[in-house]
Structures are given as C-alpha cells and as structure tokens.
C-alpha cells in the first residue's frame, strides 16, 4: 500500500477521534456539575486546603456566575489547550504529574499485552490441536477459572506465594530505590519488579485470547484453503503453523486492540496492589486525597491514550492484512 494512502487513512482516523475526545471533555464537565459544591471547590481539591482567594479567582476564571453553556465553552477551551488545572495536594499542575506517571503504566500495559497475546495464542493453538482430549479440557478449565478471578486478588495471591512464602520476587514498587542501580543492573531490577504485576494483569486476557484462538482455529479447519493445503500434501504441522495460525491470529489482534481500555482500567487495580508508580496508582492516591480534578485529568488522558492505541492497532492491522483495502 502506498504511504500516501496510509497517511490519508491515519488522518481520517484522527479526525474521527476528535468527537470522542471532545465527548470525554464534555463528560468531565458534566461530572464536575454532579459533584457536591461548585466546580471551583472541586477544582481546588476540596479539602486540599486551597486558599479562599484562589477559589474566588477560579470562580471568576471559569465564569461560574455565567450560564452553564458559557462555562462549558470555558472548560473545553482550557482542556484542549492542555490546561488541566492545578493539584494542591501535590503542589503541582496536573499535566506534568500525569505525564511523569505515563511511562510506567505504558511499560506495564505493553508487557501485559505481549504476555496475554503470546500466552493466549499458544494455549489456544495447543487446545485446538489437542481438541477434545484431556489436555484440551485442562486448558479450558484453567481458562474458565482465570476468567473468573478478580484481578486484585490474583495479585495478592501471587505476592503471598512468590514474595512472602518463596521470597523470589519483590512485593511492590518498580525498582529498588535504596540500591541506586545503573545501566543493565537497573533494567534487570525493573524487570524483576515487572514480573508479578504484568502476569497479574494478563491472566484474564490470556484466558480470553486462548478461548478465542481455540474457537477460530477450529473454525478454520473446514475451510477450503486448508483442504487445498492438505491436497498439496503438506503435513498437518505445516498446515497448522504456516496457514491456519496466521489466519486465526487476526481476530485475536482485533480483540486485543478493543481490550486496551479495559487493560488500562485493570492497571489501576494492579498498580495499587503492587504500588507500581503509574497512572493507576496516581488515580488511587487522588481518590484518597479527594483530588477530583486530578482524577478527571487522569480519566481524560487515559481516554486519549485508548483512542491513540486503537488507531495504532488499526494501522498495524492494515499493514498485517493485505486483504483490507483502505477506502
């Protein structure tokens, strides 16, 4: 596909994303209206101990004496210029607070996405190859159980087993703050801290993708291209790995893209269990501080993140599957 067409596609997707982002801003505004007290007290962080003059100043700035519609325009203008307000609790503007927490979350999500897709594809493939044998049943029973486990509980159980009882892995944090590791040692230290949170976050999705993968693989069995391959004299192994696997992967990639939003939600819980210093933990802390403005900022930025990842997945999909034509 020509790069000009790809660029046109990306631009079109970005334009389609505009109403979604605007929608989130409006939703945030409506939520602010729902909160007890007026927006100024909420923005100042309620019990955050903001000085009275600041609240007065906020009231003026947001025009809270003006009609709701005018207030909405003010709010949208502020957010779209990335002015997310100030967090008194943290004595810092909201945006840099959030950006500083972005990369640990991206690291955790990326790792969880990789583990869940890889694990789900392998397990689903094996289950399909072993269909109706006891091994298939074991995989499906494990998947059904993993599907029903609350994330935060899985995390705590893994801590209990691997950190408390076996003492193999650290319980919390992203790195050993007291050790001052540098270079590769630091990478290895972060990797060791990453193991439990990313496994916790991916278990549910491994189960989801394994079941999806198994179903699609079984669907492919009867299709004509498989019969053709068999007639050509290919071995079952070649048919499964070279032909069916590639086709069965596409639905998994699609669903994985759709699940990014829920992965981000799951990371809030996982980060608060493992004290992983990402967006989720920031959300958890802002909950306790009743710092609603920071919480709304996190909601806004994470929605933007989901929209961006969805576009990215669609572009990857387009590059993977030549059958999809860009209109």
């Amino acid at each position: 596909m020509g790069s000009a067409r790809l660029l046109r596609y990306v631009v079109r997707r970005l334009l389609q994303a505009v109403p979604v982002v605007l929608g989130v801003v409006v939703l945030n505004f409506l939520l602010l209206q729902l909160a007890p007290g007026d927006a100024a007290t909420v923005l100042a962080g309620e019990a955050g101990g903001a000085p009275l003059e600041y609240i007065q100043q906020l009231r003026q700035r947001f025009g809270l004496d003006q009609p709701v519609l005018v207030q909405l325009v003010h709010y949208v203008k502020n957010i779209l210029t990335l002015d997310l307000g100030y967090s008194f609790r943290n004595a810092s503007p909201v945006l840099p607070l959030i950006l500083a927490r972005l990369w640990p979350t991206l690291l955790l999500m990326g790792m969880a996405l990789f583990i869940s897709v890889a694990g789900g594809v392998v397990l689903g493939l094996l289950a399909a190859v072993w269909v109706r044998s006891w091994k298939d049943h074991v995989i499906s029973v494990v998947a059904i159980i993993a599907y029903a486990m609350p994330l935060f509980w899985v995390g705590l159980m893994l801590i209990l087993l691997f950190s408390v009882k076996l003492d193999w892995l650290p319980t919390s944090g992203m790195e050993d703050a007291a050790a001052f590791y540098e270079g590769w040692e630091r990478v290895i230290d972060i990797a060791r801290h990453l193991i439990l949170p990313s496994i916790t976050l991916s278990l549910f999705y491994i189960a989801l993708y394994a079941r999806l993968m198994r179903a699609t693989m079984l669907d492919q069995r009867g299709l004509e291209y498989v019969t053709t391959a068999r007639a050509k004299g290919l071995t079952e192994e070649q048919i499964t790995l070279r032909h069916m696997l590639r086709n069965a992967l596409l639905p998994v990639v699609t669903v994985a893209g759709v699940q990014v939003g829920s992965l981000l939600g799951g990371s809030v819980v996982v980060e608060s269990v493992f004290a992983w210093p990402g967006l989720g933990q920031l959300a958890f802390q802002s909950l306790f501080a009743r710092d609603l403005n920071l919480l709304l900022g996190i909601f806004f930025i994470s929605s933007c993140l989901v929209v961006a990842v969805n576009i990215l997945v669609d572009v990857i999909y387009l590059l993977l599957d030549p059958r999809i034509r860009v209109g």
Partner: protein
Amino acid sequence: MQGFWRRFLRNPRVALGLLWLAFIVALAVGAQIFAPVSPFAIVAKPFEPPLGDFLFGTDSLGRDLMSGLIHGARTSLLIAIIATLAAVAFGTLVGALAGFYGGFVDDALMRITEFFQTIPSFIFAIVLVAILAPSGTSLVIAIATVSWPPIARVVRGEVLTIKSREFVQAAIVAGQRDIAILLGQVLPNTLSPLIVIGSLLVANAILIESALSFLGLGAPNLMSWGFQIGAGRPFLRDAWWLVTVPGVAILLTVLSINLVGEGLNDALNPRLRDL
C-alpha cells in the same frame, strides 16, 4: 422448550454452577438468620486463625470473617443484580430505538454507544463513584453506566433482523402503533440473547463491585467481599486467610454464573454447541 431444559440441566458444568449459586443465594437471602450478629461487630480477639471457634477466623479488629462473607454475599448479589437489570433496561431501550427507527436515530445512538465502549470503563466507574460519594446507589449507577453498551448493540442487531420479518411487517400494515409493535412483536424475540448476556453481565458486575470496594469505594455501611480483601491486605504476611477466603468466594460465584450463562447459551443455540 422441553428440549431446552434437558440440554440445560444435563450439562454437568451448569449443574455445578447452579448448585453453588443456590447455596450463595440461600446465604444471601437468609443472612440475618445464618449470621444474626452484625458483620461489623467485634466478637473475639483479632487474628483468630480459621477452624477455631470461628470457621474462617477473625480479622484485624476481631470481626467474624464468616459473618462478613454471608452478609457480603447479600451485598454483592444485590448490587450486581440491580445494576444488571438497570443496564439491561437502558441498553434494551437504546438498542431497540436504534434498530427500529434506523437512520439518524440509529447513527446518533450508536455513536454514543461506541463512545461509552471506547472510554476506559473501569476508570470511568471510579470517577463516577468518587463524585457521587460511595454508597450502594452510586455503585449501582456506576456499574450500570459502564455495562449497558453491549446490551444495546446486541438488541439493535436482533431488532434489525426481526424488523424485516413478515409478522412485524404485518403488524405495521395492520396499523399497530410503534410502541405496541416494539413491545409486543419485536422485543419478545430478542429475549434469548438478552438472557445470556444479562447473566454474564451479572458476573462482570460482581467483579467491578468487588474491585471498587477493594479500592475503598464500596458502600461504607454494607459488608462486601471486596472490602474484606481490602481490609485484610495489610496483614497478608501473617493472616493469609483474611485475603484468601473472600477471594475464593468471589471466584466461585463469578465462575458459577459464567458456567450457567454459557450453559444457557449452548441450550438456547444448540447449533453453536460444537464451537
């Protein structure tokens, strides 16, 4: 119909799921009888291990864990079921209007549905509960608000196929009013997929409720499994049962609902069984 019940009840997974659900529902309904003392009452020394005077021991304040589990079953089921009913009602309304009227109404409603599917729903639920102040009602509102989109999409799809069927066309020609056609002819035929998705949504609602309660956003005057896990978490090292037991209760309940929901799906769509 007879074939349905036979297919449904003969499935061993369904039987196991129904058994556990019956047990939990009995506990939830008779919570006052099985655990007359308030689950927040201090009844013994803190950190009594399980299998002593109390089946599952006591927590960090000396509250009976078993009593909390029984009252927690009531909270979890009640909130999950009410939230799911609300989500099904709202989702059905949106889906039915979109599918039935098509055109601009359909476009607008489906854009809104997609919007709610795009935004990170759990974070949205957290924001909602935080702003409405934690309570049973807030939990129901938050869970229902993030759960309705799949219902709307399924109902819309069903309505679209049913709308073109002859009996609906006949009702239109006969001059029935839109609302009568929707309620009398179209919606009853969307019931079987609704039941399946609805049952799976209850499981999901329990998971969301427990996660919110774990984060400290649960209803403050209601005992719940997620709250118990959150309260036991600082003592994980020394009192493992405080975290383990309520988690197993959530796991088994969600698992049972999923098994029953899948059994319903298999029994209602026998052609799909081989998948």
